């Protein structure tokens, strides 16, 4: 167990990170992500308000739809990345990272203007379980009447799971199909056990409980950013390749002006994916060396258990950010060759 933003979290379960990772890709994995924060926004100006403090376009959402977005600083850098769930035009739910929940809560409150909104930090009310992988749908369907096959990606619906009033969302952080279930915190253990039972846990092809380490390697293979690594208050969304969640034409929002300017001028530093091309594993925080000079830093580096490669994300000067660019990583004093590649590293077959 490790302390993770104040939560005691398992790094891995007895099967181990590699098996957890592979099982999620080939069958299914279950993750307890109850540490995630939830902030409720209610009121007639809910959409107006959230649209002003986040980078994606909240007005595009319909009831029962979610979107990936970011809370931005006036500099276009990132307070946090989050999911915005629309229950109705008067009711949104923001799902934020555990380690940043308090910071986000203060940030959001301090950015209230004249909008009519009620904000509630409901983080401790909810547990969140993520069931991910090609068999996730079949397993969860045994426990709910919601027609899961009809649910589109990044849509959600209130319903019951094993009789527990829940929100079921077709989202995840693994690059697989899957669902995230939000339910009352007191029912976490019941749901966890019921999903394991429904998924034939204990058999060689059954659902496997997965820890933080597998969650990290799965998201990395899928090319997804992790707050505090690829994105933080020093990196802009454009530098982090998150231009697709910057809706610069939607109207004003915090940081828009800087992002518009940066888009016109071009970014100097850019997040890239890389593959290590010789023996060695790049790790977070190591230097990137190009033409014998320190040129950037690794934000996440790890073995990729499914791809069986050593991969990572790094910030490099924009002129070195094209796929195929040869770079070196300073692995504890040894310069290891790597190559910039397109992300995602892994894409599932549909």
């Amino acid at each position: 167990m490790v302390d993770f933003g104040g939560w005691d979290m398992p790094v891995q379960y007895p099967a181990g990170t590699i098996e957890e990772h592979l099982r999620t890709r080939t069958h299914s994995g279950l993750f307890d992500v109850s540490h995630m924060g939830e902030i409720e926004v209610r009121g007639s100006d809910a959409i107006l308000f959230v649209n002003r403090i986040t980078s994606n376009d909240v007005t595009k959402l319909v009831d029962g739809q979610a979107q990936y977005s970011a809370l931005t600083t006036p500099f276009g850098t990132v307070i946090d990345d989050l999911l915005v769930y629309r229950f109705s035009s008067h009711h949104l739910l923001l799902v934020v990272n555990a380690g940043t929940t308090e910071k986000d809560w203060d940030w959001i409150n301090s950015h209230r203007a004249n909008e009519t909104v009620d904000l509630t930090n409901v983080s401790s009310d909810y547990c969140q379980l993520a069931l991910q992988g090609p068999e996730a749908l079949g397993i969860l369907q045994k426990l709910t009447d919601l027609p899961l096959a009809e649910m589109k990606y990044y849509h959600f619906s209130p319903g019951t799971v094993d009789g527990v009033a829940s929100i079921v969302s077709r989202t995840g952080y693994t690059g697989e199909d899957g669902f995230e279930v939000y339910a009352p915190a007191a029912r976490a253990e019941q749901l966890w056990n019921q999903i394991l039972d429904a998924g034939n846990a204990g058999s060689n092809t059954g659902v496997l409980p997965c820890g933080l380490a597998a969650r990290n390697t799965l998201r990395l293979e899928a090319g997804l950013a992790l707050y505090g690594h690829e994105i933080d208050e020093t990196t802009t969304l454009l530098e982090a390749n998150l231009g697709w969640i910057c809706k610069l034409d939607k109207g004003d929002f915090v940081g828009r002006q800087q992002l518009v300017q940066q888009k016109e001028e071009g970014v100097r530093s850019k997040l890239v994916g890389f593959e290590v091309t010789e023996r060695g594993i790049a790790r977070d925080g190591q230097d990137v060396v190009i033409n014998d000079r320190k040129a950037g830093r690794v934000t996440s580096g790890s073995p990729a258990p499914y791809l069986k490669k050593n991969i990572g994300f790094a910030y490099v000067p924009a002129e070195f950010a094209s796929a195929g660019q040869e770079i070196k990583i300073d692995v504890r004093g040894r310069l290891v060759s790597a190559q910039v590649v397109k992300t995602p590293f892994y894409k599932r077959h549909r």
Partner: protein
Amino acid sequence: MANVPEDLHYSKDHEWVRVEGDQAVIGITDYAQNSLGDVVYVELPKSGEEFATNESFGSVESVKAVSEVFTPVSGAVVTINDSLADEPEKVNSDPYGEGWMIRVRMANPGEVDSLLTAAEYEDFTKAETE
């Protein structure tokens, strides 16, 4: 419970030492491999390199983390376990056998006496997990 063979010597950094004449075979313990998780990479020194006591001679990497490994006794490396380059998982499956790491010619065989016995190491790991 972690396996702790009687006939080996142990360090507080979780290496084991098997004495064979004036040479010592070194690896990491069952307890260590279990705490690390799946070993995916092992970096070892070259034959002939000399190490002082408790000096880092390489590293063991799991998916999640890098751990340095230290020489419990001083000496010069005679051979290394080359097979770990392609099969690092041997450190998990057979830490005291096929997962051995280096063989050194001891500079001072008396150093072995200051290492932990199997019983002492077992108590040490129990205290660490409590």
